[in-house]
């Protein structure tokens, strides 16, 4: 069954691709074997992360990006992540509503995913779903996620190129950027550039980037806002070799999308030529393995805890001061550690 499914996916059957992603999301029996088998077929897709505050226009832009890539003869996969409602586990996934430009075009494969109450698992599921799209042969894989919180940042970080959307307006957005999103942006898009205040937002972003990069132009004399911007609109050289360009877009009117894709392509070129892509891949696989190890390990532990009749009896004994958390941890982990050490010596 899983054999057929992998083969069907590799021969380009959309239904099989969709079903593989479902198995990944559900962690259905056999999904690990599927992802293992897909791995050797991956590595050709260009993975792009799109993040930004709620309502920034991410889905609208992704729709236009997909349409533009299609015009260029490229195939596209999209994973759109929406946070789930914490009480019931249910969710309304609203990103697909904006997918109006690719009607009936199966070569734009769009998939909505929710957090299902466990953000940790979501990052593994997203990584694996991206692999499925990559193995299927998608040229471009786009991950859309709201940039709220560390977990979502971790998800989008695994992309080769990360674009952060900043709509004009509240200084709150800029504050949010300071709290961790600025660091992961390879490209900025000031979307909704048709709204008043777009210039100001561009300006604020420029200042922030200059501040962060330890602005060279300050030493070289004051340029005034206009002159300094020139450099920053293009990928310029600095200590890191890359300055995030700022592109203005009006996603719902399909304006600035070519320029935006140009900036993404420039970044792609930069990481490939500077050997940074390999470095990013190494980091990504390292993270992937560590995350998996953590998850598998905690599962093994859960199994052991269940076997011993659940954690509650330990909790009660800790409360009664008959034992303490460290002792419980030792008691549960001890046999495992011993077993591992014994096999290692053999």
């Amino acid at each position, binding site marked *: 069954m899983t054999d057929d499914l992998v083969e069907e996916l590799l021969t380009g059957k*959309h*239904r099989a691709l*969709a*079903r593989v*992603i*479902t198995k990944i*999301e*559900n*962690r*259905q*029996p056999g999904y*690990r074997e599927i992802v293992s088998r897909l791995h050797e077929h991956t590595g050709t897709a260009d993975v792009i992360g799109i993040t930004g505050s709620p309502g920034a226009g991410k889905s609208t832009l992704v729709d236009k990006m997909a349409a533009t890539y299609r015009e260029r003869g490229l195939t596209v996969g999209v994973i759109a992540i929406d946070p*789930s*409602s914490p009480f*019931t*586990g*249910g*969710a*309304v*996934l*609203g990103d*697909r*509503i904006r997918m*109006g430009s690719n*009607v*009936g*075009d*199966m070569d734009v*494969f*769009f*998939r*909505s995913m*929710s957090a*299902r109450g*466990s953000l*940790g*698992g979501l990052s*593994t599921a997203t990584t694996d779903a991206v692999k499925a799209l990559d193995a299927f042969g998608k040229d471009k894989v786009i991950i859309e996620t709201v940039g709220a919180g560390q977990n979502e940042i971790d998800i989008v970080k695994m992309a080769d190129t990360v674009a952060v959307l900043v709509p004009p307006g509240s200084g709150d957005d800029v504050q949010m950027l300071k709290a961790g999103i600025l660091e992961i942006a390879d490209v900025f898009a000031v979307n909704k550039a048709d709204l008043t205040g777009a210039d100001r937002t561009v300006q604020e972003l420029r200042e922030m980037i200059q501040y962060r990069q330890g602005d060279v132009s300050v030493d070289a004399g004051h340029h005034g806002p206009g002159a300094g911007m020139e450099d920053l609109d293009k990928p310029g050289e600095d200590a890191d070799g890359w300055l995030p360009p700022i592109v203005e877009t009006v996603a719902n009117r399909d304006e600035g999308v070519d320029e935006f894709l140009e900036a993404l392509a420039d970044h792609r070129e930069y990481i490939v030529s500077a050997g940074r892509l390999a470095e990013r891949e190494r980091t990504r696989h390292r993270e992937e393995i560590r995350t*998996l190890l953590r*998850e*598998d390990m*905690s*599962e*093994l532990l*859960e199994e052991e805890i269940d076997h011993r009749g659940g954690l509650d009896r330990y909790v009660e004994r800790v409360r009664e001061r008959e034992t303490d958390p460290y002792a419980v941890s030792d008691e549960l982990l001890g046999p495992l550690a011993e077993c591992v050490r014994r096999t290692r010596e053999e």
Partner: protein
Amino acid sequence: MGADQEQRTVRCLVAKVGLDGHDRGAHVISRAFRDAGFEVIYSGLHRAPEEIVQATVQEDVDVLGISILSGAHDTLVPKIIDGLEEYDASGDTLVLVGGIIPDEDEEQLKELGVAEVFGPGAPMQEMIDFVRENVPDRR
């Protein structure tokens, strides 16, 4: 939470197709399904049948709920079901139709493969229970 712990959630597409602009029912159903713990993808208004097919296949939903109050169900629903067949997706997708469907058309829709039809006033709990009981087992 281990990597192998299964997390199965019912996925539904709530679809508005054709020129029909009545979207209250679709919104009400989307919210009710969400509150029942389902994952709901709402298509938005004025979708073409091919778009609904594309979404059903790609999102791999367990349930496709088509909401039609315009009277065009007799042409739109068959188009969607044909499209699903093209992608081998009709067999294990539970297809529901809601909205204004005359009694005499109900049988015809069911012959096409629609599992159930829900009209105005259909109790929410009944629809949720129907989904829970009839969601395809894809193991």
